[in-house]
Protein backbone atom coordinates (compact mmCIF):
# COMPACT_ATOMS: atom_id res chain seq x y z
CA UNK A 1 0.00 0.00 0.00
CA UNK A 2 1.20 3.52 -0.73
CA UNK A 3 -0.03 6.99 0.11
CA UNK A 4 -1.35 8.58 -3.08
CA UNK A 5 -2.68 12.11 -2.68
CA UNK A 6 -3.83 11.24 0.83
CA UNK A 7 -5.40 7.92 -0.23
CA UNK A 8 -4.07 4.57 0.92
CA UNK A 9 -3.83 2.60 -2.32
CA UNK A 10 -2.38 -0.73 -3.43
CA UNK A 11 0.46 -0.72 -5.98
CA UNK A 12 -0.66 -4.21 -6.96
CA UNK A 13 -3.08 -6.84 -5.70
CA UNK A 14 -0.71 -9.62 -6.83
CA UNK A 15 1.72 -9.42 -9.75
CA UNK A 16 1.73 -5.96 -11.31
CA UNK A 17 2.83 -7.37 -14.67
CA UNK A 18 0.02 -9.93 -14.72
CA UNK A 19 -2.46 -7.18 -13.90
CA UNK A 20 -1.06 -5.18 -16.83
CA UNK A 21 -1.44 -8.11 -19.23
CA UNK A 22 -5.00 -8.76 -18.02
CA UNK A 23 -5.99 -5.27 -19.19
CA UNK A 24 -4.24 -5.66 -22.56
CA UNK A 25 -5.72 -9.13 -23.16
CA UNK A 26 -9.06 -9.41 -21.30
CA UNK A 27 -10.20 -6.96 -18.60
CA UNK A 28 -9.14 -5.36 -15.33
CA UNK A 29 -10.75 -3.06 -12.80
CA UNK A 30 -9.09 -0.12 -11.02
CA UNK A 31 -10.40 1.70 -7.97
CA UNK A 32 -9.98 5.34 -9.01
CA UNK A 33 -12.16 6.79 -6.27
CA UNK A 34 -9.27 9.08 -5.34
CA UNK A 35 -10.06 11.18 -8.44
CA UNK A 36 -12.07 14.29 -7.63
CA UNK A 37 -15.57 14.57 -9.10
CA UNK A 38 -16.87 18.13 -9.19
CA UNK A 39 -20.33 19.06 -10.47
CA UNK A 40 -20.86 22.54 -11.87
CA UNK A 41 -24.37 23.92 -12.15
CA UNK A 42 -25.63 27.20 -13.49
CA UNK A 43 -27.02 28.70 -16.68
CA UNK A 44 -23.62 30.21 -17.58
CA UNK A 45 -21.63 26.98 -17.04
CA UNK A 46 -20.48 26.71 -20.63
CA UNK A 47 -19.41 30.34 -20.82
CA UNK A 48 -17.51 29.93 -17.53
CA UNK A 49 -15.68 26.80 -18.70
CA UNK A 50 -14.75 28.39 -22.02
CA UNK A 51 -12.72 30.91 -20.03
CA UNK A 52 -11.39 28.45 -17.45
CA UNK A 53 -10.05 25.66 -19.69
CA UNK A 54 -7.45 25.59 -22.47
CA UNK A 55 -9.58 23.23 -24.55
CA UNK A 56 -12.90 24.58 -25.76
CA UNK A 57 -16.13 23.16 -24.32
CA UNK A 58 -17.92 24.65 -27.34
CA UNK A 59 -16.80 21.34 -28.90
CA UNK A 60 -19.22 19.55 -26.58
CA UNK A 61 -22.34 19.66 -28.68
CA UNK A 62 -24.07 16.42 -27.65
CA UNK A 63 -25.17 15.62 -24.07
CA UNK A 64 -22.85 13.09 -22.43
CA UNK A 65 -19.83 14.11 -24.51
CA UNK A 66 -16.49 14.33 -22.70
CA UNK A 67 -13.44 16.50 -23.39
CA UNK A 68 -9.88 16.26 -22.08
CA UNK A 69 -8.36 19.62 -21.15
CA UNK A 70 -5.65 21.38 -19.22
CA UNK A 71 -6.51 24.05 -16.71
CA UNK A 72 -3.78 26.71 -16.82
CA UNK A 73 -2.60 29.54 -14.61
CA UNK A 74 -2.01 33.04 -15.99
CA UNK A 75 1.60 32.08 -16.84
CA UNK A 76 0.40 29.20 -19.04
CA UNK A 77 1.57 26.59 -16.49
CA UNK A 78 -0.58 23.49 -16.07
CA UNK A 79 -2.60 23.55 -12.82
CA UNK A 80 -4.23 20.23 -13.67
CA UNK A 81 -5.43 18.04 -16.49
CA UNK A 82 -9.02 16.92 -16.31
CA UNK A 83 -12.01 15.52 -18.12
CA UNK A 84 -15.14 17.64 -18.48
CA UNK A 85 -18.51 16.05 -19.26
CA UNK A 86 -21.36 18.02 -20.77
CA UNK A 87 -24.48 16.60 -19.14
CA UNK A 88 -26.94 19.44 -19.67
CA UNK A 89 -26.71 23.12 -20.61
CA UNK A 90 -26.68 24.04 -16.91
CA UNK A 91 -24.81 20.94 -15.68
CA UNK A 92 -21.20 19.97 -16.40
CA UNK A 93 -19.05 17.49 -14.46
CA UNK A 94 -15.28 17.65 -13.98
CA UNK A 95 -13.01 14.74 -13.04
CA UNK A 96 -9.73 16.05 -11.61
CA UNK A 97 -6.57 14.58 -10.10
CA UNK A 98 -6.45 13.61 -6.40
CA UNK A 99 -3.26 15.54 -5.67
CA UNK A 100 -4.64 18.80 -7.08
CA UNK A 101 -8.22 18.46 -5.86
CA UNK A 102 -8.01 21.12 -3.13
CA UNK A 103 -6.09 23.71 -5.17
CA UNK A 104 -8.42 23.05 -8.14
CA UNK A 105 -11.52 23.63 -6.02
CA UNK A 106 -10.08 26.87 -4.67
CA UNK A 107 -9.06 28.05 -8.16
CA UNK A 108 -12.39 27.14 -9.80
CA UNK A 109 -14.46 28.36 -6.85
CA UNK A 110 -12.79 31.77 -6.88
CA UNK A 111 -13.82 32.27 -10.50
CA UNK A 112 -17.22 30.53 -10.59
CA UNK A 113 -19.19 32.91 -8.41
CA UNK A 114 -18.99 35.72 -10.95
CA UNK A 115 -20.81 33.46 -13.42
CA UNK A 116 -23.37 32.24 -10.90
CA UNK A 117 -21.93 28.73 -11.22
CA UNK A 118 -22.23 26.51 -8.12
CA UNK A 119 -19.63 23.82 -7.35
CA UNK A 120 -20.42 20.58 -5.61
CA UNK A 121 -17.70 18.06 -4.85
CA UNK A 122 -19.08 14.52 -5.10
CA UNK A 123 -17.28 12.75 -2.27
CA UNK A 124 -20.38 10.52 -2.12
CA UNK A 125 -19.38 8.86 -5.39
CA UNK A 126 -16.81 6.12 -5.90
CA UNK A 127 -15.22 5.58 -9.29
CA UNK A 128 -14.22 2.31 -10.94
CA UNK A 129 -12.34 2.03 -14.24
CA UNK A 130 -12.97 -1.23 -16.10
CA UNK A 131 -10.53 -1.51 -18.97
CA UNK A 132 -9.53 -4.03 -21.61
CA UNK A 133 -10.87 -5.64 -24.79
CA UNK A 134 -13.48 -7.58 -22.76
CA UNK A 135 -14.23 -4.75 -20.31
CA UNK A 136 -17.43 -3.38 -21.82
CA UNK A 137 -19.02 -6.75 -22.36
CA UNK A 138 -18.17 -8.05 -18.89
CA UNK A 139 -19.34 -4.85 -17.22
CA UNK A 140 -22.60 -4.78 -19.15
CA UNK A 141 -23.31 -8.35 -18.00
CA UNK A 142 -23.81 -6.98 -14.47
CA UNK A 143 -26.57 -4.61 -15.59
CA UNK A 144 -30.24 -4.99 -16.43
CA UNK A 145 -30.90 -5.66 -20.12
CA UNK A 146 -32.06 -2.10 -20.66
CA UNK A 147 -29.05 -0.53 -18.92
CA UNK A 148 -26.66 -2.92 -20.69
CA UNK A 149 -28.06 -1.87 -24.03
CA UNK A 150 -27.61 1.80 -23.12
CA UNK A 151 -23.97 1.49 -22.04
CA UNK A 152 -22.98 -0.72 -24.97
CA UNK A 153 -24.40 1.96 -27.29
CA UNK A 154 -22.04 4.60 -25.85
CA UNK A 155 -19.57 5.99 -28.35
CA UNK A 156 -15.93 6.60 -27.29
CA UNK A 157 -15.61 9.62 -24.98
CA UNK A 158 -19.34 9.71 -24.15
CA UNK A 159 -21.02 9.13 -20.80
CA UNK A 160 -24.59 8.49 -19.72
CA UNK A 161 -26.53 8.56 -16.48
CA UNK A 162 -27.87 5.07 -15.74
CA UNK A 163 -29.97 5.38 -12.59
CA UNK A 164 -27.62 6.49 -9.81
CA UNK A 165 -24.54 5.62 -11.90
CA UNK A 166 -22.75 7.59 -14.53
CA UNK A 167 -21.05 5.30 -17.03
CA UNK A 168 -18.53 6.74 -19.50
CA UNK A 169 -16.56 5.11 -22.30
CA UNK A 170 -13.28 6.64 -21.18
CA UNK A 171 -10.05 5.47 -19.56
CA UNK A 172 -6.34 5.83 -19.00
CA UNK A 173 -4.93 2.62 -20.45
CA UNK A 174 -5.10 2.78 -24.25
CA UNK A 175 -7.77 0.07 -24.20
CA UNK A 176 -11.52 0.25 -24.59
CA UNK A 177 -13.61 0.27 -21.43
CA UNK A 178 -15.73 2.21 -19.00
CA UNK A 179 -15.28 4.50 -16.07
CA UNK A 180 -18.23 4.22 -13.69
CA UNK A 181 -19.09 6.79 -11.05
CA UNK A 182 -21.44 5.24 -8.52
CA UNK A 183 -22.67 5.72 -4.95
CA UNK A 184 -19.73 4.76 -2.73
CA UNK A 185 -21.63 2.15 -0.66
CA UNK A 186 -22.23 0.10 -3.85
CA UNK A 187 -18.58 0.01 -4.94
CA UNK A 188 -17.41 -3.05 -2.99
CA UNK A 189 -20.20 -5.32 -4.18
CA UNK A 190 -19.79 -4.15 -7.80
CA UNK A 191 -16.03 -4.81 -7.52
CA UNK A 192 -16.68 -8.38 -6.32
CA UNK A 193 -19.21 -9.01 -9.07
CA UNK A 194 -16.70 -7.77 -11.64
CA UNK A 195 -14.07 -10.14 -10.19
CA UNK A 196 -16.61 -12.98 -10.43
CA UNK A 197 -17.21 -12.00 -14.08
CA UNK A 198 -13.49 -12.48 -14.80
CA UNK A 199 -12.35 -8.87 -14.41
CA UNK A 200 -9.03 -8.78 -12.59
CA UNK A 201 -8.29 -6.39 -9.70
CA UNK A 202 -5.51 -3.98 -10.76
CA UNK A 203 -3.46 -1.53 -8.69
CA UNK A 204 -1.67 1.76 -9.23
CA UNK A 205 1.42 0.03 -10.62
CA UNK A 206 -0.39 -1.44 -13.62
CA UNK A 207 -2.26 1.83 -14.09
CA UNK A 208 1.09 3.58 -14.52
CA UNK A 209 2.63 1.07 -16.96
CA UNK A 210 -0.59 1.00 -19.03
CA UNK A 211 -0.93 4.79 -19.29
CA UNK A 212 2.72 5.18 -20.18
CA UNK A 213 2.51 2.54 -22.94
CA UNK A 214 -0.53 4.48 -24.15
CA UNK A 215 1.59 7.65 -24.23
CA UNK A 216 -0.61 9.46 -21.73
CA UNK A 217 0.77 12.13 -19.42
CA UNK A 218 0.70 11.92 -15.64
CA UNK A 219 0.13 15.21 -13.85
CA UNK A 220 3.05 16.10 -11.57
CA UNK A 221 5.47 13.97 -13.64
CA UNK A 222 5.02 15.02 -17.24
CA UNK A 223 3.61 18.48 -16.65
CA UNK A 224 3.05 20.81 -13.72
CA UNK A 225 2.60 24.49 -12.88
CA UNK A 226 6.09 25.26 -14.20
CA UNK A 227 5.56 23.69 -17.63
CA UNK A 228 3.20 24.70 -20.39
CA UNK A 229 1.11 22.31 -22.50
CA UNK A 230 2.95 23.19 -25.74
CA UNK A 231 6.18 21.77 -24.28
CA UNK A 232 4.48 18.82 -22.57
CA UNK A 233 3.03 16.97 -25.54
CA UNK A 234 -0.37 18.57 -24.97
CA UNK A 235 -0.54 21.12 -27.80
CA UNK A 236 -3.38 19.06 -29.28
CA UNK A 237 -5.53 19.89 -26.25
CA UNK A 238 -5.17 23.67 -26.57
CA UNK A 239 -7.89 25.23 -28.72
CA UNK A 240 -6.51 28.48 -30.18
CA UNK A 241 -9.55 28.72 -32.45
CA UNK A 242 -11.66 30.74 -32.30
CA UNK A 243 -9.03 33.45 -31.84
CA UNK A 244 -11.32 35.64 -29.75
CA UNK A 245 -11.95 33.05 -27.01
CA UNK A 246 -10.20 34.40 -23.91
CA UNK A 247 -9.04 31.56 -21.64
CA UNK A 248 -6.68 31.69 -18.67
CA UNK A 249 -3.08 31.39 -19.89
CA UNK A 250 -3.88 32.19 -23.51
CA UNK A 251 -1.70 35.30 -23.83
CA UNK A 252 1.44 33.51 -22.63
CA UNK A 253 0.80 30.48 -24.88
CA UNK A 254 0.28 32.78 -27.89
CA UNK A 255 3.71 34.27 -27.17
CA UNK A 256 5.37 30.85 -26.91
CA UNK A 257 3.66 29.75 -30.10
CA UNK A 258 4.80 32.88 -31.94
CA UNK A 259 8.45 32.50 -30.84
CA UNK A 260 8.34 28.72 -31.23
CA UNK A 261 8.56 26.39 -28.22
CA UNK A 262 12.10 25.68 -26.98
CA UNK A 263 11.29 22.21 -25.70
CA UNK A 264 9.20 19.26 -26.82
CA UNK A 265 7.97 16.03 -25.33
CA UNK A 266 9.13 12.81 -26.97
CA UNK A 267 8.81 9.10 -26.36
CA UNK A 268 11.98 7.13 -25.56
CA UNK A 269 12.71 3.44 -25.99
CA UNK A 270 15.69 1.86 -24.31
CA UNK A 271 16.92 -1.33 -25.96
CA UNK A 272 19.49 -1.94 -23.19
CA UNK A 273 18.59 -4.00 -20.12
CA UNK A 274 17.88 -1.09 -17.81
CA UNK A 275 14.87 1.01 -16.85
CA UNK A 276 14.19 4.68 -17.56
CA UNK A 277 12.98 6.58 -14.49
CA UNK A 278 11.74 10.13 -14.02
CA UNK A 279 14.44 12.80 -13.45
CA UNK A 280 17.16 10.93 -15.38
CA UNK A 281 19.27 13.25 -17.54
CA UNK A 282 18.84 13.07 -21.32
CA UNK A 283 21.94 14.07 -23.29
CA UNK A 284 21.44 15.28 -26.84
CA UNK A 285 24.88 15.53 -28.49
CA UNK A 286 25.45 18.92 -30.09
CA UNK A 287 22.07 20.19 -28.93
CA UNK A 288 21.81 20.19 -25.16
CA UNK A 289 20.09 18.35 -22.38
CA UNK A 290 16.64 17.21 -21.37
CA UNK A 291 15.01 15.16 -18.69
CA UNK A 292 13.00 11.93 -18.42
CA UNK A 293 9.60 12.89 -16.99
CA UNK A 294 8.16 9.35 -16.75
CA UNK A 295 9.88 6.03 -17.22
CA UNK A 296 9.05 2.42 -16.60
CA UNK A 297 9.38 -1.12 -17.85
CA UNK A 298 6.84 -1.89 -20.54
CA UNK A 299 5.41 -5.39 -20.00
CA UNK A 300 3.97 -5.42 -23.54
CA UNK A 301 7.23 -4.42 -25.27
CA UNK A 302 9.50 -6.16 -22.71
CA UNK A 303 11.84 -3.19 -22.52
CA UNK A 304 11.93 0.20 -20.93
CA UNK A 305 9.99 3.17 -22.28
CA UNK A 306 9.65 6.74 -21.14
CA UNK A 307 8.53 10.27 -21.84
CA UNK A 308 11.11 13.05 -21.85
CA UNK A 309 11.20 16.80 -22.26
CA UNK A 310 14.07 17.65 -24.60
CA UNK A 311 15.32 20.58 -26.71
CA UNK A 312 13.28 21.22 -29.84
CA UNK A 313 16.19 20.29 -32.15
CA UNK A 314 16.52 16.77 -30.71
CA UNK A 315 16.70 14.12 -33.43
CA UNK A 316 16.08 10.40 -33.40
CA UNK A 317 18.64 9.26 -30.86
CA UNK A 318 19.78 10.45 -27.44
CA UNK A 319 21.79 9.21 -24.48
CA UNK A 320 20.19 8.77 -21.08
CA UNK A 321 22.12 8.73 -17.83
CA UNK A 322 20.92 5.59 -16.07
CA UNK A 323 22.53 4.72 -12.75
CA UNK A 324 25.87 6.26 -13.69
CA UNK A 325 25.98 4.96 -17.25
CA UNK A 326 25.12 6.73 -20.50
CA UNK A 327 22.85 4.45 -22.51
CA UNK A 328 21.56 5.05 -26.05
CA UNK A 329 17.81 5.53 -26.38
CA UNK A 330 15.62 5.85 -29.45
CA UNK A 331 13.29 8.80 -29.87
CA UNK A 332 9.86 7.60 -31.00
CA UNK A 333 6.36 8.86 -31.54
CA UNK A 334 3.85 7.96 -28.84
CA UNK A 335 1.71 5.96 -28.10
CA UNK A 336 3.98 2.96 -27.71
CA UNK A 337 1.05 0.53 -27.51
CA UNK A 338 -2.59 0.86 -28.49
CA UNK A 339 -5.35 -1.75 -28.24
CA UNK A 340 -2.85 -4.41 -27.27
CA UNK A 341 -0.52 -3.82 -30.26
CA UNK A 342 3.02 -2.46 -30.27
CA UNK A 343 3.26 0.70 -32.38
CA UNK A 344 7.05 0.99 -32.34
CA UNK A 345 9.53 -1.25 -34.10
CA UNK A 346 11.22 -3.74 -31.80
CA UNK A 347 14.84 -4.64 -32.42
Amino acid at each position, binding site marked *: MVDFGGWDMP*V*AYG*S*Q*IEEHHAVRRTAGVFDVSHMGIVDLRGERCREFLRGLLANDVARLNLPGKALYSCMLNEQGGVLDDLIVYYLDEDFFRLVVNAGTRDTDLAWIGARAAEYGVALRERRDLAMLAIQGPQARERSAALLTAEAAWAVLELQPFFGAQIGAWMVARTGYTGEDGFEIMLPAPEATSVWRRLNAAGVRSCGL*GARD*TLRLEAGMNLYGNDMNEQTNPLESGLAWTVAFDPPDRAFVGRAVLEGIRARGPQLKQVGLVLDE*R*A*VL*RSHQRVLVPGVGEGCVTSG*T*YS*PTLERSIGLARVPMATGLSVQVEV*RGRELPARVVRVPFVRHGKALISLV
Partner: protein
Amino acid sequence: MSNIPQDLKFTRSHEWVKPLGDGITEFGISDHAQHALGDLVFVELPDVGRVLKLGESCAVVESVKAASDVYAPLSGTVVAVNDQLRHTPELINRDPYGGGWLVRLRSGAPADAGLMSASEYAVLTTQG
Protein backbone atom coordinates in the same frame (compact mmCIF):
# COMPACT_ATOMS: atom_id res chain seq x y z
CA MET B 1 4.07 -12.13 6.53
CA SER B 2 7.10 -13.08 4.50
CA ASN B 3 8.68 -16.50 4.32
CA ILE B 4 11.92 -16.82 6.36
CA PRO B 5 13.51 -20.31 6.24
CA GLN B 6 14.99 -21.25 9.60
CA ASP B 7 18.16 -22.78 8.13
CA LEU B 8 19.36 -19.59 6.39
CA LYS B 9 21.31 -16.56 7.60
CA PHE B 10 20.43 -13.00 6.63
CA THR B 11 21.92 -9.53 6.26
CA ARG B 12 20.47 -6.23 7.34
CA SER B 13 20.27 -5.34 3.61
CA HIS B 14 17.96 -8.33 2.94
CA GLU B 15 20.32 -10.86 1.35
CA TRP B 16 20.05 -14.50 2.44
CA VAL B 17 23.06 -16.81 2.75
CA LYS B 18 23.25 -20.59 2.49
CA PRO B 19 26.49 -22.63 2.98
CA LEU B 20 26.67 -25.37 0.33
CA GLY B 21 29.77 -27.10 1.77
CA ASP B 22 33.37 -27.20 0.46
CA GLY B 23 33.79 -23.50 1.25
CA ILE B 24 31.03 -22.52 -1.23
CA THR B 25 28.27 -20.15 -0.16
CA GLU B 26 25.12 -19.27 -2.09
CA PHE B 27 23.19 -16.05 -1.68
CA GLY B 28 20.15 -14.22 -3.01
CA ILE B 29 17.55 -11.72 -1.83
CA SER B 30 14.90 -12.50 0.76
CA ASP B 31 11.19 -13.03 0.22
CA HIS B 32 10.63 -9.77 2.09
CA ALA B 33 12.93 -7.96 -0.38
CA GLN B 34 11.35 -9.43 -3.52
CA HIS B 35 7.92 -8.58 -2.20
CA ALA B 36 8.93 -4.98 -1.48
CA LEU B 37 10.46 -4.61 -4.96
CA GLY B 38 7.54 -6.16 -6.83
CA ASP B 39 7.84 -7.81 -10.25
CA LEU B 40 11.52 -8.08 -11.21
CA VAL B 41 12.39 -7.29 -14.81
CA PHE B 42 16.19 -7.14 -15.01
CA VAL B 43 19.05 -8.65 -13.02
CA GLU B 44 22.71 -7.69 -13.37
CA LEU B 45 25.13 -10.29 -12.04
CA PRO B 46 28.90 -10.17 -11.41
CA ASP B 47 31.38 -11.96 -13.68
CA VAL B 48 32.57 -15.39 -12.57
CA GLY B 49 36.05 -15.02 -11.07
CA ARG B 50 35.41 -11.57 -9.65
CA VAL B 51 36.69 -11.11 -6.11
CA LEU B 52 34.09 -9.55 -3.81
CA LYS B 53 34.68 -7.78 -0.54
CA LEU B 54 32.16 -8.00 2.28
CA GLY B 55 29.49 -5.32 1.77
CA GLU B 56 30.52 -4.53 -1.81
CA SER B 57 27.75 -3.84 -4.34
CA CYS B 58 27.91 -6.88 -6.63
CA ALA B 59 24.56 -7.20 -8.39
CA VAL B 60 21.50 -5.14 -9.29
CA VAL B 61 17.93 -6.34 -9.12
CA GLU B 62 15.53 -4.08 -10.94
CA SER B 63 11.75 -4.23 -10.72
CA VAL B 64 9.04 -2.26 -12.45
CA LYS B 65 9.17 0.02 -9.40
CA ALA B 66 12.87 0.47 -8.62
CA ALA B 67 16.47 -0.68 -9.03
CA SER B 68 18.21 -2.01 -5.96
CA ASP B 69 21.85 -2.94 -5.30
CA VAL B 70 22.72 -6.32 -3.85
CA TYR B 71 25.67 -6.37 -1.41
CA ALA B 72 28.10 -9.23 -0.91
CA PRO B 73 27.17 -10.87 2.43
CA LEU B 74 30.77 -12.09 2.79
CA SER B 75 34.10 -11.79 1.01
CA GLY B 76 35.07 -14.34 -1.62
CA THR B 77 35.46 -15.22 -5.28
CA VAL B 78 32.44 -15.65 -7.56
CA VAL B 79 32.37 -19.26 -8.78
CA ALA B 80 28.89 -19.26 -10.36
CA VAL B 81 25.97 -16.94 -11.09
CA ASN B 82 22.38 -17.83 -11.87
CA ASP B 83 22.29 -17.22 -15.62
CA GLN B 84 18.63 -18.22 -15.83
CA LEU B 85 17.77 -14.90 -14.20
CA ARG B 86 18.92 -13.00 -17.27
CA HIS B 87 15.85 -14.23 -19.13
CA THR B 88 13.53 -15.16 -16.26
CA PRO B 89 14.11 -12.63 -13.47
CA GLU B 90 10.63 -13.50 -12.15
CA LEU B 91 12.22 -16.64 -10.66
CA ILE B 92 13.26 -14.35 -7.80
CA ASN B 93 9.63 -13.42 -7.17
CA ARG B 94 8.43 -17.01 -7.45
CA ASP B 95 11.17 -18.82 -5.57
CA PRO B 96 13.56 -16.37 -3.84
CA TYR B 97 15.36 -19.06 -1.79
CA GLY B 98 15.55 -21.70 -4.54
CA GLY B 99 15.45 -21.04 -8.29
CA GLY B 100 15.97 -17.33 -7.61
CA TRP B 101 19.47 -17.63 -6.12
CA LEU B 102 21.93 -15.03 -7.42
CA VAL B 103 25.59 -15.86 -6.77
CA ARG B 104 27.83 -18.66 -5.43
CA LEU B 105 31.06 -17.60 -3.75
CA ARG B 106 34.19 -19.48 -2.63
CA SER B 107 35.07 -17.94 0.66
CA GLY B 108 37.67 -18.36 3.36
CA ALA B 109 35.45 -16.65 5.89
CA PRO B 110 32.92 -18.65 7.90
CA ALA B 111 29.57 -18.40 6.13
CA ASP B 112 27.74 -17.03 9.15
CA ALA B 113 30.23 -14.40 10.33
CA GLY B 114 28.33 -11.28 11.36
CA LEU B 115 25.04 -12.48 9.86
CA MET B 116 21.60 -12.58 11.43
CA SER B 117 19.69 -15.72 12.33
CA ALA B 118 16.23 -16.31 10.86
CA SER B 119 14.57 -15.20 14.08
CA GLU B 120 16.66 -12.01 14.25
CA TYR B 121 15.78 -11.28 10.62
CA ALA B 122 12.09 -11.87 11.34
CA VAL B 123 12.27 -9.15 14.01
CA LEU B 124 14.00 -6.76 11.55
CA THR B 125 11.38 -7.25 8.83
CA THR B 126 8.37 -6.96 11.13
CA GLN B 127 9.76 -3.70 12.49
CA GLY B 128 9.83 -2.49 8.90
